[in-house]
């Protein structure tokens, strides 16, 4: 039903070797890790959450395999715990200030917004340096300006243009996160072209417009049908009226919200395809992504409802299902051996740890 569904075929040049990403985790195995994570986090009033994060990430990284090797995650829980305490303290102080001094809260809000790119940058760098593949660590060299462009201006641009300029924002975002990534001593280049991103924009935009028309037409006809058969809307007892108004608000709001979620999923999957497929490692190894956009949206939405209706118990299965799908649609075309990369990030964890430990924990709150 769309071009991306087609399996990406032969390597771009015959000399290249096709290496398929795979995910080898299982819902059954992850379930135990997941429930113990939650249990110990609750029992320790949150302290274990740092250890939980390391075990969760190690499980997902370690099960992501490529060319016979797997990824690994090296952060130490204590680093993450300290980072979380720092971030939590800042959030609490900020919220207190915002509650007690609304004016100062506004100023702090602006400062916070200005600090956000810096925090994102340090967070990305920490994650990259804590990730390894075949004994070699990743690194991230992005600066403040790029993060500001990608995360603040990009967001403003997307919302301000009602989504029409979203491809520009995603170009900035992918360029910032991938083009600044390094694998050991070698650069990774990513330059998603705008016309290709707009190519992925057309279908979701059409779905949005058509969906909008359908929702509005359906809404209007249901409403006129209701008044047509003599349902006097003012005749409800006030008890009904409260429930009715609430229902009407949610009923009217929900279809738009679902439509928005669907369209965002369709577009972000397409943008990932474009960005990864224009990513080159060390000038010779090519990444490729061929997500089926409808398939991806279906997995994300059905995962959400499955998790909700099982009161969370299906979450391990859902998380594994998504990782397995994403690995299965991602490919590396290698031009030669993957043997000759050298780690440049010093692995003596004391250095990395003392310098960056205060930054982790940014994954929550945003």
């Amino acid at each position, binding site marked *: 039903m769309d071009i991306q569904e087609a399996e990406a075929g032969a390597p771009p040049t015959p000399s290249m070797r096709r290496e398929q990403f795979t995910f080898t985790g299982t819902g059954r195995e992850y379930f135990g890790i997941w429930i113990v994570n939650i249990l110990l986090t609750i029992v320790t009033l949150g302290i274990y959450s740092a250890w939980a994060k390391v075990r969760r990430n190690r499980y997902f990284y370690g099960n992501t395999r490529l060319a016979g090797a*797997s990824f690994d995650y090296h952060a130490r829980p204590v680093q993450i715990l300290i980072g979380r305490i720092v971030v939590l303290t800042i959030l609490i102080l900020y919220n207190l200030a915002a509650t007690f001094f609304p004016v100062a809260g506004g100023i702090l809000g602006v400062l916070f917004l200005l600090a956000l790119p810096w925090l994102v940058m340090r967070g990305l760098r920490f994650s990259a340096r804590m990730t390894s593949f075949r004994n070699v660590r990743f690194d991230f060299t992005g600066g403040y300006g790029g993060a500001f462009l990608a995360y603040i201006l990009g967001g403003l641009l997307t919302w301000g243009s009602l989504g029409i300029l979203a491809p520009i924002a995603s170009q900035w975002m992918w360029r910032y996160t991938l083009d600044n990534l390094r694998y050991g001593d070698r650069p990774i280049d990513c330059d998603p072209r705008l016309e290709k991103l707009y190519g992925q924009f057309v279908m979701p935009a059409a779905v949005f417009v058509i969906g909008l028309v359908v929702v509005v037409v359906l809404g209007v006809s249901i409403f006129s049908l209701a008044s047509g058969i003599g349902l006097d809307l003012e005749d409800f007892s006030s008890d009904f009226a409260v429930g009715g108004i609430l229902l009407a608000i949610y009923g009217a709001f929900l279809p738009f919200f679902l439509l928005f979620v669907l369209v965002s999923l369709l577009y972000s999957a397409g943008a990932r395809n474009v960005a990864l497929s224009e990513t080159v490692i060390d000038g010779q190894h090519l990444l490729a992504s061929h997500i089926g956009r409808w398939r991806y949206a279906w997995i994300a939405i059905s995962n959400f409802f499955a998790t909700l209706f099982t009161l969370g118990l299906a979450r391990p299965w859902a998380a594994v299902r998504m990782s397995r799908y994403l690995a299965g649609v991602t490919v590396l075309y290698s031009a030669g051996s993957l043997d000759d990369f050298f780690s440049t990030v010093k692995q003596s964890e004391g250095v990395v740890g003392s310098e960056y430990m205060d930054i982790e924990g940014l994954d929550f709150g945003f």
Partner: protein
Amino acid sequence: MASEAEDGQAISGVWYAPQTSRAMTATLRLEDGGRLTARDEAGAVLASCELPAAAFSDRVGSIPRRIAFADESAFETDDNDSVDRLMQPLAKRGSGLVHSLERFHPRLAVFVVLVALLAAAIYRFAVPVLVEVAVLVTPPVVPELLSSSTMTTLDNTVFEPSKLDAETQKDIAEGFDKLAAASAGGADGYSLNFRKGGHIGPNAFALPDGTIVLTDELVEMANDNETILGVLAHEIGHVDHDHSLRQVYRAAGVTGLILLIGGDVGAGVEDILIQGSALLQLRHSRSAEAEADRFSIELMHRTGHDPLAISRFLELIRDKLGDTSESDFLSTHPATPSRIEETKRYAEELMATMPD
């Protein structure tokens, strides 16, 4: 493969030279003299160090195990069981314990039940205790700052100065002072402020430092000082029970706990939990209203006023504002008809047991 490591047999895997991605098929074993040694296929030594000097990664599911040598070269293998046996002499139990808890086993069903019970217990007992502790250690300056900033904001945006004549204000203020003198905070613990309510209409509310605001619209609607005093006694009740501080702390505590398990439940479910906890907050808000109603009845009774004043006011709300809804779902206040019934019942009970 299982018993190989024990007899000094080798674990097979891959060895990486320090800092490189160059992989080499290799074997690992504990050799004579307790040295952990990796050898290539030809038997040449790749790396070797004393067992305690090697760093073993924790076992998580069945992901590959990494053993880093002192020279920062590393050996990787999928053979987790053999690695566990190899490192047995090190007797590092901690991480092994977590892994054995995580194994797929009927015990996991017990964990699910435990999580549900503990989450409910924390919400029901631990959060209230933490909230009480937080209220106790809050210095008085916090409610003062909170109140003065709220008051300034409201004065700048919603309120206008009261248009009530001085005599009405004086009458109400005198009654209020008597109520205040008979309350925990004493005559100086509370201050009454008259404002024209603008679009918030007939209303009265209390800020945590004892500032109580009464709108002209409410005075006009009630048109009876005794009824108004019943409302003011209700607001004093909110102050004495620290209702607004408790609400702020409870919301912060619950949200914080949800954020900590956020990574494990996923962003969508995390949002739903936060929204859901906000709905549950409403239950506390409703019980705070009921508590303040009872406080009003007791205070009015104690100061020789009519304990039924608050009931009369609620009847006014019902009759003049047409609030007859029986449902208190999704509401910060209990349903008005049931509040009327409850306040009447409580006032009559009080008058029967402690007649003037």
